[in-house]
């Protein structure tokens, strides 16, 4: 029962019924008030007119009230002419009502009257006026007529209220029932989502109303949650998988070293190799944490004005000897002076270093790597081109994802986190990051840095 009372449908039905009842009542009260006021007004005018008419001429007063009385078919007209001493001179009223001042105004007065030979105490609408010779004339009318009319209106209201209430309850229940059914299907879908089935979607109707729009929004939210969960699961799986490989190697190497080492040097070799693998593993864990940290934008503390040209030349300077050893021509092309940008110098350097590291790693000997800055539509674009194997068009969207390694990259050492880190750094700075074909084969990465307005 309490569940029924708390239910949305029940409350709506009840609310709608109460509301329409209230509306009907208001309407009836208005009609009642208007009708009663109209009838009362009519009667007042008649009485005022009659009493004034009778009082106008003392000679004809008696006559005129007799006419008033005789016009009456239902014994509702009363009148009387009284002498200055209060003695009755004419009419069907026994005595002059003392609480009725002779000012011609209409008042409701209770008095004794004779109707069909019986004496009754009646409420009468009465008006009195003084004549020029000191007499007083009283004209009255029964109140029953108006009271009856009022009672009829009230009764009609009472009779009409029952079907009104019934119909509005029915309507409320129908409407609420419909809403309830829509809600029930949504509730069922939500319950399935809560049980972990993220592929469930809320039913969306044809109407395109607020409810449908809400359902669509919730579905959009579920899409995003599903995508994120998918990504998290992917990262989790990838971390676990990528950790297992070096840990397996480590375990085997240590086990073999322990069993087979013939002297301390051989044992040390085994441990050293193990340490290298552990370092690789830790490096990966650190990179995952760093990407997460950068993605959550907790690094804004270190933001400042960055000279992109300087950072690029320092990065090239760092990689130059390595490129030379591999027989790769590393060149730098700074197009004049680039305006300062807003960012974290160290992170931007790290992003460029990661891109350069990839370029040098994948470009074969006698290849070329070119790094440069160009100004283009309000932004400074940093590009890195190489003459390496390039990235297949189908794989380009994937390379910025964590742990993704292209078919070719699988043969080289790496953890597939470098470009993920670059993407996270770019996102933190609102830089655009794209990859395309390089002019001499290979690929070209572009980092578009919006130039801070007002800085130049």
């Amino acid at each position, binding site marked *: 029962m309490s569940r029924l009372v708390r239910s949305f449908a029940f409350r709506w039905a009840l609310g709608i019924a109460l509301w329409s009842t209230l509306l009907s009542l208001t309407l009836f009260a208005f009609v009642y008030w208007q009708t009663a006021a109209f009838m009362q007004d009519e009667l007042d005018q008649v009485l005022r007119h009659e009493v004034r008419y009778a009082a106008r001429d003392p000679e004809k007063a008696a006559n005129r009230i007799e006419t008033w009385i005789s016009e009456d078919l239902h014994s509702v007209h009363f009148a009387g002419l009284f002498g200055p001493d209060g003695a009755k001179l004419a009419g069907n009223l026994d005595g002059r009502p003392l609480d009725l001042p002779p000012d011609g105004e209409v008042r409701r007065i209770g008095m004794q009257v004779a109707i069909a030979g019986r004496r009754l105490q009646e409420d009468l609408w009465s008006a009195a006026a003084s004549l020029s010779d000191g007499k007083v004339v009283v004209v009255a009318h029964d109140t029953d007529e108006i009271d009856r009319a009022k009672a009829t209106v009230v009764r009609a209201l009472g009779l009409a209220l029952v079907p009104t209430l019934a119909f509005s309850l029915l309507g409320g229940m129908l409407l609420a029932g419909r809403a309830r059914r829509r809600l029930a299907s949504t509730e069922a879908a939500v319950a399935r989502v809560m049980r972990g089935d993220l592929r469930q979607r809320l039913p969306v109707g044809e109407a395109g109303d607020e409810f449908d729009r809400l359902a669509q929004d919730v579905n959009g939210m579920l899409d995003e949650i599903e995508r994120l969960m998918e990504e998290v699961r992917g990262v989790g799986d990838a971390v676990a998988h990528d950790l297992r490989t070096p840990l397996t190697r480590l375990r085997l190497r240590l086990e073999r070293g322990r069993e087979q080492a013939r002297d301390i040097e051989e044992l040390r070799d085994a441990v050293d190799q193990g340490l290298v693998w552990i370092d690789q593993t830790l490096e990966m864990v650190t990179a995952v944490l760093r990407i997460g940290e950068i993605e959550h934008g907790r690094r804004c503390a*270190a933001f400042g004005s960055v000279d992109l040209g300087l950072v690029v030349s320092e990065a090239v300077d760092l990689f130059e000897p390595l490129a030379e050893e591999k027989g790769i021509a590393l060149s730098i092309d700074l197009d004049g002076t680039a305006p300062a940008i807003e960012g974290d110098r160290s992170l931007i350097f790290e992003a460029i270093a990661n891109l350069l590291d990839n370029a040098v790693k994948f470009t074969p000997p006698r290849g070329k790597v070119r790094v440069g800055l160009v100004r283009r539509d309000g932004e400074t674009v940093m590009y890195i081109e190489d003459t390496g194997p390039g990235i297949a068009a189908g794989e380009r969207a994937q390379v910025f994802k964590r742990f993704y390694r292209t078919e070719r990259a699988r043969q080289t050492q790496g953890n597939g986190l470098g470009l993920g880190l670059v993407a996270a750094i770019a996102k933190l700075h609102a830089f655009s990051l794209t990859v395309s074909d390089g002019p001499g084969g290979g690929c070209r990465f572009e980092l578009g840095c919006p130039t801070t307005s007002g800085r130049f």
Partner: protein
Amino acid sequence: MAKLLLIEDDAATAAEVLGDLRGRGHAVDWAATGPAGAAAARSADWNAIVLDRMLPGLDGLTLLRDLRAAGDRTPALVLSALSDVDERIRGLRAGGDDYLGKPFVLAELAARIEALLRRPTDTRETVLRVGSLELDLIAGSVRRGLRALDLLPRELKLLAYLMRRPGQVVTRAMMFEEVWNYRFAPKSNLIDVHVGRLRRKLEAEGEPVLIHNVRGEGFTLTPDV
């Protein structure tokens, strides 16, 4: 031999660090909690303090700030397992002289402690001399004996860094931080290639080796005469 204080709550980590530092000839005391560490730091004169960022009872940075406020200038190295990169800045602001993130390599810690103990006292000197090497910081010229060496600006900076720390092991990370002034773990063998280049210019055929590779630790520049 130096007197060192280690404030670290994880007993296993502390045992390894103690073993390593004692093996390198230092006298090391260990405190496991913040309050105990603070008391120990005040009770004696230490050559250096190594303290963890997160300590039971009293936060490492608060401890350090209190020490500095009391006028204690003992060199301090902050260890932290927190991955937040701003941690480093916080550690240094609290009065730390160096910062090392966990997980760390024992050799890295030892090298950094060594660097703290032997901080170059006078950094204003303009001519550095180590053995037959002579570096004029103002002229930007280097000579080995009578032979003038032609070094690139970066190589000059790297050599100056090594010459200020003769006989001391410096790690790749330390070099990257100090010479390139960036803070992240440099990949692959980048630093080795730079050091290799410098060595080829420094050490002509038949000349004694100046820069030694210390396996698993880093590099050291030793005087040749």
